[in-house]
């Protein structure tokens, strides 16, 4: 996709492998479009995790987001995805 050219994104092959690693049914196939969309979803997930961690750090008036901040934002993050 053109709009992702200069952006970091999950490669299709990696998404495919991640998915097949966890699929129970070996015969289940995944369409190429679905892989692209899932890559986008994963990207949003990671960026949300990072952005919420950063915001939590700013709220606590520190400039380094650490595991403690990740732990704080984790429950709501998992409820949103």
């Amino acid at each position, binding site marked *: *996709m053109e709009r992702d050219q200069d*952006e*970091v*994104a*999950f490669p*299709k*092959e*990696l998404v*495919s*492998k*991640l*998915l*097949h*690693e*966890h*699929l*129970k*049914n070996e*015969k*289940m*196939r*995944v*369409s*190429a*479009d*679905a*892989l*692209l*969309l*899932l890559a*986008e*979803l*994963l*990207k*949003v*997930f*990671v*960026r949300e*995790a*990072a*952005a919420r*961690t*950063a*915001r939590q*750090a*700013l709220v606590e008036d520190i*400039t*380094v*987001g*650490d*595991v403690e*901040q*990740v*732990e704080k934002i*984790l429950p709501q*993050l*998992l*409820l*949103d*995805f």
Partner: protein
Amino acid sequence: MAEDQEEQFSRSQRLKAAVHYIVGSLCQEVADDKEVHFSKQAIAAISEITFRQCESFAKDLEVFARHAKRTTINMDDVKLLARRSRSLYAHISKCSDEIAANSLEQKEKKKKKSGSGGNVSRNSDMDTVFPESKD
């Protein structure tokens, strides 16, 4: 049997490393944006969460596809993953429309090519089937 387990272990280690790399770069983007740094442990935690989240995504996608009596996971299944947040659903729907339009365009191009250039079918199934071999 033990070798099998070892192989499985090293494969998931490699996948985790790949996820970690991407998560690292994404976090760097956010860090530049928000002017907050992330500790190595925080990035490792986020990549571990992402890897586990993939497991739950995979399980959900599988049952969604099966519920629709399909054996192929498609974009509708992925859209359902984003059902919990309205703005996320809107974003994912928009992306799905873009992807659908894109692949339609490519199919049209391919049709034109094969119409004028005869039997050029070397890459014809490249975008529908993903081989498991490469790493």
